[in-house]
């Protein structure tokens, strides 16, 4: 179901983008079509599903508000914010100092909202005795340096690496944060014999059945039939399992905040929308889509 939803979201987005691009990209569509409020929302492909789900639900409840959601990547969204062509930019990373300065030049002081969180769980077969791994060990497994479970305290079995397809946002995030350990100059890639499975369900099924397998996936996709690995930044620990709590207290290292950015004086409609997003109803959709909801009390959330 999430895969289908993602696909539908993507198709919708690509239709929107392909219609918008001939008009000249940034700077083109700012004219409101109806007397009601019109919110332009653009950016991260990771968030696009969630943003679409929110927009659909919100428009269903507020007939006078129209929200257009587009993907394109975090950079695209922030660039559009800098050029003042969107109301809300989605980003799965923080705005850089350089981007913030550019926005300032155009008179826009970007305001950050944490709207959801995302954890990637590393999973193995329940019969696999390995409980804990460091980020370095996971990196070595996926880049092909470690090829047998015995090298990291498991049974003498070959390691079968599973991953989502290379165009999945999770794949890219995992490559950057885990395999390259966050080092932007690192050119390490997935080992070529990594199995690239087309769906999260495929990964879960193979990990469930195969004691050799290791996989990773968004926390929302993990079922009780597979075993989550406790991950630590260094060998000294502490090792922590992914959960809503460990993500929210920053104990689990493979997690990130998802952001929305606006200018310093968003319209009342945008303010209402952002307020609704951090509310219970919208955060329930976050859970439904496999992300980690933010706690109501998180700083920087309320506009």
């Amino acid at each position, binding site marked *: 179901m999430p895969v289908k939803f993602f*696909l539908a979201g*993507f198709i919708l987005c*690509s239709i929107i983008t*392909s219609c918008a691009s001939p008009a000249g990209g940034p700077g083109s569509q700012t004219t409101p079509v109806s007397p009601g409020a019109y919110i332009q929302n653009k950016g991260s492909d990771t968030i696009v599903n969630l943003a679409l789900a929110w927009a659909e639900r919100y428009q269903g409840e507020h007939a006078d508000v129209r929200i257009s959601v587009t993907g394109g990547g975090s950079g695209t969204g922030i660039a559009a914010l800098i050029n003042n062509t969107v109301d809300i930019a989605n980003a799965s990373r923080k705005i850089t100092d350089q981007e913030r300065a550019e926005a300032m030049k155009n008179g826009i002081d970007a305001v950050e909202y944490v709207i959801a969180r995302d954890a990637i769980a590393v999973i193995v077969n329940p019969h696999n005795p390995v409980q804990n791994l460091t980020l370095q060990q996971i990196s070595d497994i996926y880049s092909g340096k470690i090829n047998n479970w015995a090298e990291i305290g498991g049974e003498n*079995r*070959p*390691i*079968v690496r599973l991953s989502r*397809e*290379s*165009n999945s946002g999770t794949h*890219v995030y995992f490559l950057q944060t885990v395999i390259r350990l966050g080092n932007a100059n690192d*050119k390490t*890639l*997935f080992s*070529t*014999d*990594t*199995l*690239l*499975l*087309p769906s999260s369900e*495929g990964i879960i*099924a*193979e990990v469930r*059945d*195969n004691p*050799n*397998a290791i996989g990773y996936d968004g926390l929302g996709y993990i079922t009780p039939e597979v075993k989550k690995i406790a991950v630590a930044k260094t060998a000294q620990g502490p090792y922590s399992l992914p959960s809503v709590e460990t993500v929210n207290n920053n104990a689990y290292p493979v997690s990130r905040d998802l952001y929305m950015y606006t200018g310093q004086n968003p319209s009342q409609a945008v303010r209402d929308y952002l307020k609704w997003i951090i509310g219970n109803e919208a955060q329930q959709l976050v859970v439904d889509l496999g992300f980690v909801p933010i706690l109501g009390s998180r700083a920087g959330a309320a506009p």
Partner: protein
Amino acid sequence: MRRAARISEFGITTLIRLAGYSSILFVVLILLFLLREGLPALGEVSLSNLFSTRWYPTESYFGILPLILGSIVVTVGALLVAVPFGIVTAVYISEIAPRWMREVLKPLVEILAGLPSVVLGFIGIQLLSPLLRVALNLPTGLTAFTGALLLGGIAIPTVVSVAEDALNTVPRSYREASLALGATRWQAIWGVTLPSARSGVITAIMLGVGRAIGETMTVMMVTGNAPVMPHGLDALFLPVRTMTATIASEMGEVANGSTHYNVLFFIGITLFVIALAINVVAFMVGYRRRTRAERLLS
């Protein structure tokens, strides 16, 4: 009255002619579209990159060799399953089975042909791949071999159906003559019936190849999709990534007009050329064999 008949006659023949031409038109249009979208890849990616052994498009590694070889490994494996099984089944249905058996088997095979490939893929993931992993002691059950077995299953009904039709068109007198000359039943089948149905049988095999190499859903689900270069025979028991699975899984999320997009279409061109080559070879082989067989039997 006669005039009306002539007009309707003209209308009908025109319609039929247009229908005939339209298939040519469609193939040409498809080819043109593929070329238009795929050829720019040659300008954007250096040949040494395009024909390298690393496929990782998001970091601009566009080596399509592992994908081509992956498709070949799976297809050849599927043929090793489908050709013997398919032809033997066709011979049984057409030459040996009693009438009631034939009337049960033929529709059953045709039902098998209508089985959606995603269902087979599902069976592959849930049943076949765990079974093969344990039985053959493989690291993972998602291998080229799993894909080949299932693709063989997909190609068998096609092979059986077409080969059986071809065997049926062999005149009864051929069999009777060979039996009258003292040939055993096996000698009549192997020496007379099969050779005279050769062109049809080869068409059956080629349709099977087409079915196997173009199949997408099943291979995407069960072959593991790891773009590894096959080394030697054990490649059959390792994961592979086929051309079709690559296009299917990556086309949906690639930016329109990007290098990656063009390279995916270039893979489509490669697939098209391979399919064309198979058909041309099949036509030539089938044609030559038939004349020789006919000469022998006339």
